[in-house]
């Protein structure tokens, strides 16, 4: 039975939250309906095509988000999405996103960072962030395959000298040698793609200590 449109206030703050092409539509409940069992229905639209499409898993749902990654996986297309609130036979008008362009707007997550320490060295191995995939068993696609100019900014903090410096690399391994033995170093890595301003997020800071000094000959002044 079609609901009476406009009988409810509209959901608010509709937006796509996109990280590594995992595109999730989010919104806030309509104002003034606290305690009311409202459900939501979502539709999406591919710019340049003819009609709005539904996602069955996002019809009459209670939650205030809907994962549209599969529906918006062609990142060279642009999309719109809309949501309306439903309560009994009443429903709100649709509220729509702006034009969403995954290729430009997805946030590029940090790489996976694994560290191995030596006496005076730390080896850093990076694994490029992975693009969202439909099924866990699908083969992985690295974000580097989408953004060929993806680079990494490695930040290194020497807790003893209290000095921080960084280094920009394009490959996936970096060996920091001639470090001070028995010293705690904290490392964080951020992916970035030169070009349009894109959101990025640094990796979790990891702190490791170089090993004890096995020799006594070396003193740094």
């Amino acid at each position, binding site marked *: 039975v079609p609901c009476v449109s406009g009988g409810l206030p509209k959901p608010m703050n509709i937006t796509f939250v996109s990280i590594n092409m995992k595109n999730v539509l989010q919104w806030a409940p309509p104002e003034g309906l606290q305690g009311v069992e409202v459900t939501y229905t979502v539709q999406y639209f591919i710019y*340049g095509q*003819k*009609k709005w499409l539904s996602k069955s898993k996002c019809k009459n749902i209670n939650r205030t988000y809907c994962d549209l990654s599969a529906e918006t996986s062609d990142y060279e297309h642009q999309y719109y999405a809309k949501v309306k609130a439903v309560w009994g036979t009443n429903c709100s008008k649709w509220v729509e996103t*702006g034009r969403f362009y995954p290729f*430009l707007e997805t946030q590029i997550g940090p790489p996976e960072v694994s560290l191995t320490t030596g006496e005076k060295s730390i080896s850093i191995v990076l694994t490029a962030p992975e693009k969202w995939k439909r099924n866990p068993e699908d083969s992985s696609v690295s974000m580097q395959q989408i953004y060929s100019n993806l680079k990494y900014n490695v930040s290194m903090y020497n807790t003893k000298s209290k000095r921080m410096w960084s280094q920009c690399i394009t490959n996936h391994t970096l060996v920091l040698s001639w470090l001070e033995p028995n010293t705690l170093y904290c490392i964080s890595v951020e992916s970035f793609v030169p070009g349009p*301003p894109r959101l990025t997020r640094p990796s979790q800071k990891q702190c490791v200590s170089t090993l004890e000094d096995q020799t006594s000959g070396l003193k740094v002044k």
Partner: protein
Amino acid sequence: EFRFGSCRVEGVVLPELWEAFQAMKHTVQAQDNVTSVRLLKQEVLQNVSDTESCYLIHALLKFYLNTVFKNYHKKIVEFKILKSFSTLANNFLAIMSKLQPSQENETFSISESAHRRFLLFRGAFKQLDIEAALTKAFGEVDILLTWMEKFYQL
């Protein structure tokens, strides 16, 4: 610099163009109600060869400067986005003035192929009411810049 095949363009910083368009994107795209039409479709921009790219970008920028920007200016003033528009238009002009697509005979077929792509774009543009077409073309500058980015070397 940009490398559209043999056409080299230096002295234009793409992030400046992105910043200018991002400042106008939501304002302009929100005015585009004909969402069932995309002017810069994939048939226009996909699989463009390097040699073809110079002809195509020349035709597109010329159209944007002479038709889109020129006739959309009243809206630009109305939306108070004159500064960002000026940045975009002057940088497009800077690129255009440095593009010299070769006119030799052996590249005639390539320029023809580029011209067919451009006609696809312009044909779709002409099918719309002029105001709607101008708004849509301006709102699709992010698609154009994304394609141009493929020819941009840091």
